[in-house]
């Protein structure tokens, strides 16, 4: 293995665009693939929303294409509804959002922002993408095996998942691919950030986005292996007949199960949430990083409290490993354990609030440019704020007894991930598109994408808090139509579903904008159209092989905007002097 994959500049199409080791091409591959998965995961949800709003009615137009074993006569079967639910969660988290944040933005932007020619291990980087794709294809294939895809929820709790249909086995295999992919990526990100920083780029001069990616990489590196272990154990339970998660005396459909028993269902939950709670921070930290970059650029002044933000990000990373059991209050772990995890959960809210406060205070007194990326970035703040604050009652075991597994939980984490993280992703796409393609995206279509999206996101998730407080369970196939205590909130289902379809409609301006801007020749005239200080804008557009014509040297911090006495209102990091 040679460590210089850039030495040959004469590459054919396959080497250049398909089996590329260039971090920029891999980033784009990740981005396009993950956007497709994101859209697919959204489509699954739109099907579910039909069933919730109009339970038992045939799905119009597409119902007849779903097949007799999924929706006979266009009416969705409960088993298929469960498949959709489990796969919506899995696809959105593991195949949509994380690959976009880490695989796409992380890959493309981090080496540029630290002044590196590429990632430290370009071949591992390529392997990471192909493992991700293999995992994604495995998940898609699982829809077509007998019994359909995994239908035990994205959390795959045993004993249900242990005895579920074949789709669950494919789910585990798919997860093993995805875990391998993220392991390769995480090792690569950490070594790149430690080893390949340009001369003068000390840790306290790193942009917040790089810090966020560094901590995220540590979370992926250390939190995913326990899920891999759990996956191996569940796979053995399913194919080798072991009883890791099957307690003694388990009855299925009135028959005792032919296993040795002696296992523990809680064991899976501990291993699963040991990953899945840090995973929440994997979903949010890079989005916070993107928002910080865009905010600093568009308020034209330094971020308020850069150091507090950095330390908060690091502290969040550490704390995220010791809060996992707040997902498990209802399992009867005992008050002592509950008390511990309540305390850590309250503590972890502090650094999140610090970061959000720093970003809010940064807005104060700035001369703000409201372009499309900035709109999404600013909207991220209150949306993530709502998501975070509604999490506090869930972190305390007493209110959680009422709220657990209700639509309140759905509302809470979707506020964090959908109008939170996904707005961060949109902001990042609009912001870095000129660097990646050399063309600017259309502002009018951007506004047409942003305002309805903001409206519909809130119309979808705000009513869920009401439904959840009324006691509506999150996994009801008919949305709770047969429960007397839910009759008052059932009509909200229709509004939520309409809003979800409306949200889909107003993603069209984004898709059109993306394709149209790539084809149209509205080429940016400058390498630095947003007048930004960080290193990724001090490259040719789009950056060529090795990114920088000469190795950059860094002389200053990341956000030197509006420095008194400076010639312009921004001073790039690689500008010598003062």
């Amino acid at each position, binding site marked *: 293995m040679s460590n210089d994959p850039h030495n040959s500049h004469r590459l054919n199409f396959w080497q250049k665009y398909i089996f590329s080791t260039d971090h920029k091409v891999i980033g784009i591959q990740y981005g396009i693939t993950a956007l497709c998965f994101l859209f697919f995961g959204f489509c699954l949800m739109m099907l579910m929303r039909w069933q919730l709003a109009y339970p038992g009615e045939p799905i119009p137009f597409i119902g007849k294409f779903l097949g007799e074993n999924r929706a006979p006569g266009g009416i969705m079967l409960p088993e298929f509804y469960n498949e959709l639910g489990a796969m919506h969660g899995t696809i959105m988290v593991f195949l949509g959002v994380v690959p976009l944040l880490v695989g796409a933005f992380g890959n493309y932007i981090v080496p540029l922002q630290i002044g590196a020619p590429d990632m430290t291990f370009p071949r591992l980087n390529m392997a990471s993408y192909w493992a991700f794709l293999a995992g994604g294809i495995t998940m898609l294939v699982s829809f077509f095996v007998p019994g359909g895809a995994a239908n035990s929820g994205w959390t795959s709790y045993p004993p249900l998942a242990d005895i579920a249909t074949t789709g669950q086995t494919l789910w585990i295999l798919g997860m093993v691919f995805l875990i391998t992919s993220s392991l390769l990526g995480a090792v690569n990100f950490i070594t790149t950030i430690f080893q390949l920083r340009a001369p003068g780029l000390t840790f306290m001069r790193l942009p917040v986005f790089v810090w966020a990616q560094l901590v995220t990489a540590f979370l992926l590196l250390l939190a995913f292996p*326990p899920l891999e272990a759990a996956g191996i154990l569940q796979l053995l339970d399913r194919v080798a007949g072991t009883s890791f998660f099957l307690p003694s005396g388990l009855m299925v459909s009135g028959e005792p199960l032919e296993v040795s028993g002696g296992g523990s269902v809680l064991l899976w939950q501990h291993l699963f949430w040991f990953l899945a709670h840090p995973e929440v921070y994997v979903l949010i930290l890079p989005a916070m990083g993107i928002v910080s970059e865009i905010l600093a650029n568009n308020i034209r002044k330094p971020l308020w409290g850069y150091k507090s933000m950095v330390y908060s990000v690091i502290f969040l990373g550490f704390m995220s490993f010791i809060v996992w059991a707040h997902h498990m209050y209802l399992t009867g772990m005992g008050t002592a354990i509950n008390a511990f995890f309540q305390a850590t959960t309250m503590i972890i809210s502090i650094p999140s609030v610090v970061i959000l406060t720093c970003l809010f205070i940064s807005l104060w007194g700035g001369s703000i440019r409201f372009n499309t990326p900035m709109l999404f970035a600013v909207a991220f703040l209150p949306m993530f704020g709502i998501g975070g604050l509604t999490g506090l009652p869930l972190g305390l075991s007493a209110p959680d007894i009422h709220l657990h597994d209700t639509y309140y939980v759905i509302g809470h984490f979707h506020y964090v991930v959908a109008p939170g993280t996904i707005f961060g992703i949109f902001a990042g796409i609009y912001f870095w598109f000129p660097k990646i393609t050399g063309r600017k995206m259309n502002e009018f279509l951007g506004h047409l994408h942003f305002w309805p999206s903001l409206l519909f996101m809130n119309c979808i998730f705000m009513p869920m808090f009401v439904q959840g407080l009324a006691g509506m369970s999150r996994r009801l196939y008919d949305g709770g139509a047969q429960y007397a205590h839910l009759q008052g909130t059932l009509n909200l289902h229709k509004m939520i579903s309409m809003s979800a379809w409306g949200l889909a409609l107003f993603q069209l301006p984004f898709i059109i904008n993306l394709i149209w801007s790539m084809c149209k020749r509205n080429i940016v005239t400058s390498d630095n159209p947003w007048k930004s200080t960080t290193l990724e804008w001090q490259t040719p557009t789009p950056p060529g092989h090795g990114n920088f014509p000469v190795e950059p040297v860094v002389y200053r911090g990341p956000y030197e905007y509006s420095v008194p006495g400076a010639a312009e209102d921004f001073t790039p990091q690689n500008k010598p002097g003062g």
Partner: protein
Amino acid sequence: MDAIPYTVEPRQDTGLYNAKLGVWLFLASEVMLFGALFSTYILLRIGAAQWPLGSSILNVPIGAVNTVILITSSVTMVMSWVALKDKSFGRFKLCLGLTILLALAFLAIKGFEYNAKFEHHYFPKTSTFLAIYFTLTGLHALHIVGGVIVNSYFWGPGCKMWQSDPEHFINRIEVAGLYWHFVDLVWIFLFPVLYLL
């Protein structure tokens, strides 16, 4: 600006070359993988009505022999790296070859041990003790196989690098050695936990 720096020489402020940092991070993640399985062992055991004494089911002398074999292979692994540092290529070939042979001996003994268990109708599904025993040792054996493949590459086709880029080759053996010591260390925990406790 084309070549990736610090592939061979260490970076001054971190004191590491890329692959060394990379392998340490990889090993950190491996610690979490085996750590999760050891935690599983603890949770299953404290939740069990009765838990068999390892030595009542497993063959302690065979496990002890395998422990000695792996520790010896770690020694020969580090000797092969020292040999390269001494610019003694022949001694390197001998020591790394011994490491590979010892690893294969470990696998052969492990296979024999598995076979004996199967003959006594001890399968992973027999009890949670056997389930975690087969999972932990099986995963560890897969790591041994991985090490054998890597070391065989450096013993065979990969050693041509010694002529073209000796410093880089020494680094590679060091990195392979770090991995090998880790796999050895896992067994040093596995043996007492499964066989003796």
